[in-house]
């Protein structure tokens, strides 16, 4: 299978400890700690956190760009989730947005930023979100329900109104996350009411092609304005591996709704983006039967349509 001419990674983050609270990493480390302790070893939680953080020092996106270049990825959707309301953070959301704007300027034409804002910040937060669209040229909204709200909660609607009036996509985290946050609001079906109430706003279920797949596929298939991305695909629990999982996903008649994403740096800090793309286009993989037209939709055309680029 030859690669499409254009590849857009629809889901990446800055590997910057300035944007993600230490508490987020502590939650993940606690989960690893339990596993290691059970096996008879127990490095401290702080040790595990420090190792993770040592891999989150790419504050200006240079390492990310290097990864994209090596993998042949032209541009990427850079997500700036807002954890600052739910967890103690080094930077406030204004500083985090400014950092992403600096990255945007440092690497012209390589990133499309979706900005997060916790809906409980009220009018001030709504205004700030809109200002990132106007002043920074950001391209949409990132929503993180595990911070403690449903994506269909009415508190979200003023933000969706902005997205409606400015024709911006909304990307919503679904599925597991750091144990420091709630999993109760991470089900893709929770977007249903908002998707019904805002038929002209396009909603992307982040990780929907990997976790809670049944729900995410149904939402994407039957709601015209709901999409899903495949970020985190290496975590697929398919017995034949993630390529087999994706091959099945492409048979669901929702190829016009599937968006490629790696979730860098969460998955891939060892393997690298290029490794995964090589595996996707490996002529011996289960994905070899996927048509070139389908890959084009997934790898760039679907997300380009939503971003208006």
């Amino acid at each position: 299978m030859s690669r499409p001419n254009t590849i857009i990674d629809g889901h990446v983050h800055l590997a910057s400890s300035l944007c993600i609270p230490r508490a987020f990493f502590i939650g993940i480390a606690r989960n690893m700690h339990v596993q290691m302790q059970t096996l008879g070893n127990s490095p401290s939680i702080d040790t595990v956190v420090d190792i993770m953080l040592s891999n989150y020092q790419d504050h200006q996106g240079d390492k990310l760009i290097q990864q994209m270049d090596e993998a042949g990825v032209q541009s990427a959707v850079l997500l700036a989730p807002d954890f600052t309301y739910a967890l103690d953070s080094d930077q406030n959301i204004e500083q985090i947005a400014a950092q992403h704007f600096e990255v945007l300027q440092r690497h012209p034409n390589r990133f499309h930023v979706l900005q997060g804002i916790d809906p409980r910040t009220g009018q001030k937060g709504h205004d700030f979100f809109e200002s990132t669209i106007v002043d920074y040229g950001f391209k949409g909204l990132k929503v993180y329900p595990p911070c403690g709200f449903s994506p269909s909660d009415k508190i979200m609607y003023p933000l969706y109104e902005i997205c409606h009036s400015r024709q911006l996509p909304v990307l919503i985290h679904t599925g597991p996350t750091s144990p420091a946050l709630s999993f109760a609001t991470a089900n893709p079906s929770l977007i249903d009411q908002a998707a019904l109430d805002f038929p002209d706003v396009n909603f992307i279920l982040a990780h929907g092609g990997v976790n809670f797949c049944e729900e995410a596929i149904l939402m994407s298939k039957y709601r015209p304005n709901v999409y899903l991305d495949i970020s985190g695909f290496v975590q697929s629990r398919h017995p034949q591996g993630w390529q087999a999982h994706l091959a099945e996903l492409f048979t669901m008649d929702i190829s016009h709704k599937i968006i490629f994403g790696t979730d860098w740096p969460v998955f891939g800090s060892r393997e690298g983006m290029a490794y995964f793309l090589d595996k996707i286009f490996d002529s011996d993989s289960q994905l070899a039967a996927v048509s070139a037209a389908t890959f084009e939709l997934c790898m760039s055309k679907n997300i380009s349509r939503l971003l208006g680029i």
Partner: protein
Amino acid sequence: MHVKTQLIQLIAQVLPQPDKVEGANDDTRFIEDLGLSSINSIMLISLIESTFQLSGAKLSDKLLTAKTIAEATRTIEAQLKAATE
């Protein structure tokens, strides 16, 4: 115990399929042969630091980018040597 032997034992602890380390040798690759993910790698580095009483961002970075068991073994041995000098 030899560093490589200890390393292989630690790898087995973090792999979803520990039997993959059976027959592992110097040339065994972390990703292609063992299927070691990024998350598993963080756990492995934690275990290495704890077992060999080593630490440091440079060590983590080198271990994270090591492609084979031989490379990781050399990194650990070099750190152990530096620690005793």
